Every structure is written in structure tokens, then in C-alpha cells.
């Protein structure tokens, strides 16, 4: 297999607050190959977004304390700010969660969509506007010539997210990081945006990292998935396998907590008991053990490493690593 396009190795990003050190990303390693779509799932505060921002070195005020981010073999954490600017928006583009606030309210949308080519290709206003209009066309904005002259407040949420995607793609980046691109949108618009992302991935060959807490989105979009909990990857593998046979109790509980259409009626929801851990004072051993129904004595003592469990998956769990199956109680 070819060398991965983007490779994170034991990345640690921490926030130094008066209350203590927040270990937002605590040793994340991942690989992203050209053209593939990788899903990162996890609940709020599990470190998904900070991982993405750390790749772009936009994790301020957090600090990358160790580990490296290799893009085409270059370690991004060692680049100067000026070199990093060449990567941002040109090689790696990012789409944010809330399209309502991700566009600058004082500029016409077309002008903003053309900003990356002005920054990186040094194109003039007219030429950048031409690209912006053609990109807006491609992402399905009707009457793009006219719409490019509109302000963001005249766009609906779905249209703004389309505009954000258009902006990210003007420079045909190699990697697109979509940080919860559909969370702020209603369900029908979600489907449209996901369709769009899929088409973009297919046509431009852009490798995509899709960050979400919606397991359904991952199932429909990603070949591979990584599950994050408390700043660490607890399970990863092909989406089909992870969803069919979760090898980490957290993934297992997440999947079980989704209400199903084919279920008996009046069945109560099955939430994961307990609360996400405090990232300043992580539980000893496996961070999930206080909420885990499979825990054994060792779980509160030693931190499990992410190792191969089964044919295709990696999991960080003492229980499954010892060969035990996760069966519903």
C-alpha cells in the first residue's frame, strides 16, 4: 500500500488552564490515505475537533506537547508559521460545524469563496470571483452569479454550508477536514450536504476526515472509522466491522443506545450510564472503566494500548484483548 497522505503519530494537545492541564488530545495516531473517507466519532469533549484543529495547527490556546503530524512526509508541527499558511487552505481545507457563524457577515459570499485562490494563487478579484461562481455552481447553489453578490445573511443554513464547502475546494486540496458539517443543519439538508461531500470526494479525489457524533452519518459515508473517548482513540477499523462487531465497550454502548425502528415498542432507551470524564482528572487506568459494564479489576489500574483485536480492528480494552466477546446484558 502507498504511503499515507496524512499520518498522526502519538499526538498530544493540551490546554493549560488555571484549574489544571486539560488533556484534550492524549496520544492520537491515525493514517489517512489519498481519496479515502475516515470517520472520527465520539461525544462532545472527546477531542475530535481539537485533533482536527491540531492538524491545521489552529488549536490555540492549546499546545501540541508531543507527537507529530506528517503530511506527504513533512512534519507539520515543525513548520514555520509561514510554511504552515501554505498548507492551510491549499493542501488541507477545513469545514466547520456552524455555517451560520463560519462566514464573515460583512463580505459578499462570492468574495469569501474566492479568498483561498487570492491568498494562495495570488489571483485578482475578478478572476477569483469567476472561480467562486463556478464553485458555487458545482455545490448546487442556484443562480450563482447573482448569489455570489449576496451576503451570508441572505443564505439559508444549508446554502452557507455549501458555500463553505465551495470555499474549501477552490484550491482543490488533498485533504478536507469536515468538523461536524451537518450538526447545525436539519435532517433533509444534512442528507444533501452529505451527498455533496460524497460527490466531492469521488470527483476531486479529496481525502476526507469526517468528524461527527452521528453514527448514522459515519455508516453512510466512511470506509474506516475511529472512535474517540476522553482524548484517545479507543477503537478503529473498517466501518462495517466496527458497527457489526464492536470491540470496545464504549462503541458497543454507543451502538446499543441508538433507538431502532424495528425494535419492540415501549422499549426504554438504553443510555450509557454516568458522565463523560473530567479531562483534567482522568480516571485511573482505562478512562471508560467507571461507565463500563464489562470492567474487570485490571481496568482501573492499567491503561490499555490500542492493539489488534480480531482480523481488522484495533481496540484499547483489556476485556476484548483477552479474547472475550461483548454480549448485551
Amino acid at each position: 500500500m502507498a504511503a499515507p497522505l496524512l499520518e498522526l503519530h502519538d499526538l498530544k494537545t493540551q490546554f493549560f488552564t488555571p484549574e489544571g492541564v486539560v488533556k484534550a488530545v492524549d496520544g492520537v495516531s491515525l493514517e489517512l490515505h489519498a481519496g479515502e473517507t475516515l470517520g472520527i466519532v465520539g461525544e462532545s469533549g472527546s477531542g475530535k475537533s481539537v485533533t482536527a484543529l491540531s492538524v491545521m495547527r489552529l488549536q490555540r490556546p492549546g499546545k501540541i506537547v508531543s507527537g507529530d503530524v506528517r503530511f506527504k512526509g513533512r512534519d507539520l508541527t515543525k513548520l514555520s508559521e509561514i510554511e504552515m499558511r501554505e498548507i492551510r487552505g491549499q493542501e488541507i481545507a477545513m469545514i466547520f460545524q456552524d455555517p451560520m457563524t463560519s462566514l464573515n457577515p460583512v463580505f459578499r459570499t462570492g468574495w469569501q469563496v474566492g479568498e483561498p485562490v487570492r491568498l494562495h494563487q495570488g489571483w485578482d478579484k475578478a478572476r477569483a470571483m469567476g472561480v467562486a461562481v463556478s464553485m458555487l455552481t458545482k455545490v448546487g447553489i442556484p443562480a450563482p452569479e447573482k448569489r455570489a453578490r449576496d451576503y451570508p445573511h441572505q443564505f439559508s443554513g444549508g446554502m452557507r454550508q455549501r458555500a463553505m464547502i465551495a470555499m474549501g475546494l477552490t484550491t482543490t486540496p488533498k485533504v478536507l477536514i469536515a468538523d461536524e458539517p451537518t450538526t447545525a443543519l436539519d435532517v433533509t439538508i444534512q442528507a444533501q450536504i452529505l451527498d455533496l461531500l460524497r460527490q466531492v470526494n469521488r470527483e476531486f479525489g479529496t481525502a476526507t476526515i469526517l468528524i461527527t457524533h452521528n453514527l448514522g452519518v459515519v455508516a453512510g459515508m466512511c470506509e474506516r472509522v475511529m472512535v474517540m473517548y476522553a482524548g484517545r482513540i479507543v477503537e478503529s477499523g473498517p466501518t462495517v466491522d466496527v458497527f457489526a462487531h464492536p470491540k470496545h465497550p464504549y462503541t458497543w454502548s454507543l451502538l446499543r443506545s441508538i433507538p431502532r425502528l424495528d425494535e419492540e415498542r415501549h422499549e426504554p432507551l438504553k443510555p450509557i450510564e454516568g458522565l463523560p470524564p473530567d479531562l483534567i482528572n482522568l480516571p485511573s487506568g482505562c478512562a471508560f472503566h467507571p461507565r463500563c459494564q464489562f470492567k474487570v479489576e485490571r481496568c482501573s489500574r492499567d491503561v490499555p494500548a490500542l492493539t489488534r483485536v480480531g482480523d481488522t480492528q484495533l481496540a484499547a480494552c483489556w476485556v476484548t484483548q483477552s479474547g472475550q466477546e461483548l454480549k448485551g446484558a
Partner: protein
Amino acid sequence: MITPLPIDVPVVTSPAAPGQPARSYWEQATSRLRRNRIGVASGVVLLFFVLVALTSPLLAAIFTHTDPRSIDLLNTFLPPLSPHHILGTDDLGRDELTRMFYGAQVSMGIGFLAVGVSLTVGAGVGLAAGYYGGLIDGLLMRFVDIILAVPAIFLFILMSILFKPNTITLALIIASVGWGSIARLVRGDVLSVRTRDFMVATNSLGASDLRLILRHLLPNVLHVLIVFGSLYLGQVVLIEAALDFLGLGISPATPSWGNMLTNSETFFFHSSWLVIWPGLTIFITVLAANLFGNAIRDAFDPRLR
């Protein structure tokens, strides 16, 4: 080149009425300003004084045929409507109207220069402090606190003694205090804008700090500058007149509305017009600047009304 995506374009609803041209924040604000009659009227008054200042030698040549410094000791204290002296003459027989024309140069020149310098420095400091935060913010803002904690009049008097006041130095003296307030206001606004997602989004496009601040952040705080600048103009005119009146401003040889008052206060009871012309003009100018500033504020921030 890239071929179009085979997307069947869904009907996307938009909040804007079809066919209605996009109106920018700027266009909306100026149209609101145009509808404010008092605002337009005071704007016209200010514009009038600016034009007088720009064309004072021409006006003097056309209307009064005299120089603001030409002394005529045979015709002192002529009352208004005297032949050749529509607004009368002063204690040295100099024509009041001519001196008023030239006084506008001083007031408007110092007014706009001081406002311009205050806005530039204040915006720069406020943007830097708000954007970078941390130590830079702390240092800059404590410096502003110090400037604003010293009584302004004391600083003005001190600096007027240290530097020989002319139009430019006096403007700089006034601006040396004025930038502090604007820096604070801008910083406050920057702090709220900085945390908005589009700042990170723009950063992720690969924009440099300078471009981020000047191109993307500044337009978002521009309304603060416009509103403050227009309100501050009136204050500067008043401060300048007060310094002139106290003899700390423009030297009396050059006519200014302020130092015309100094010379005339002694003659108030026997030639009151010498006080009325400059006094009334300062009053009208400051009133117009304040009303115009209020109109601008209402136009740019309709929530405040």
C-alpha cells in the same frame, strides 16, 4: 478543468426575496442616515465649515478683500454691517469675517487631523490588543489605563508648554489622549468578534495575521470607529477652542475661533459681537458634530435607538 458535479440541484429556499438586489450593511446604514433629517442637516453644516476652511483665502478675496492680519487702527471696533466689514472689526481694526474664515482652517484642520490620528492609533492598538490577547493585551491596555487616568487638561497644558503649538502639534497633543478611549472600544469589539467561527475558518484558509486583522477583522469593528470619530470631532473642536482661549493653543497672530475669544472677552460689554461670532460658530459646529455623530450611531447600530 473540473467537470460539474452530477448533482441534481435541489430547490434551496432563501430568505432574500427574489429579484431584490443585495444590500450591504454599508448601504443600509447610509440609507438610514439619509432618512434622518437632523442628521443630514448637521452633516450639511459640517460640510459647509469644511468648505469654508478649504477655501478661506478665496472667500476672503471675494467677500472681504482683506487679510486676517491687516491692522487698521483708524477703524477699530466697527459694529457689524459697517461698510466693507459685514461682521465688524476687532480692537486692532482687523476684519471679523476674514478672521472667521481663517479660523475655520484651524478648527477643522485640527479637528479632522486629531480625529484621524486618534482613530488610526486607537484602532491599531485596540486590534492588536484584542487579537493577540495575553501579554500584549495586558501591556497595551495598562498603558491606555495610565493615559486615561491622568487628567487630560493637565496633559494638554504640559505638552503645550513643551511643544510650540501649531496646527499639527496641537492636533497631535489632543490625539495623544483621544486614542486611548477608541483603543478600549475597539478592543472590546475585537474580543467578541475574534471568538466567532469565521475567524478560525479564515485562519484555516491560510491567511496571515496581518491580513486576518486588517482585511477580515477591521471591517467588523469599522462601525465603532465611524461612530466614535464623528462624535469625537465635536469634542476636539471644543478642546482646541478652550486651549486657544487659555492661550495654550495657536498663537494669537494666526486667527482661530478660540483665540478670537481670548482677545475679545475684555470688550464684551462694549463690543459684544466680538464674542458672539466666534462663540456662536463654535457652538454651532460642536452641536452639528454631536447631532451628526448621533445620527451616524443610529444609522450604524439600529439596536441602540
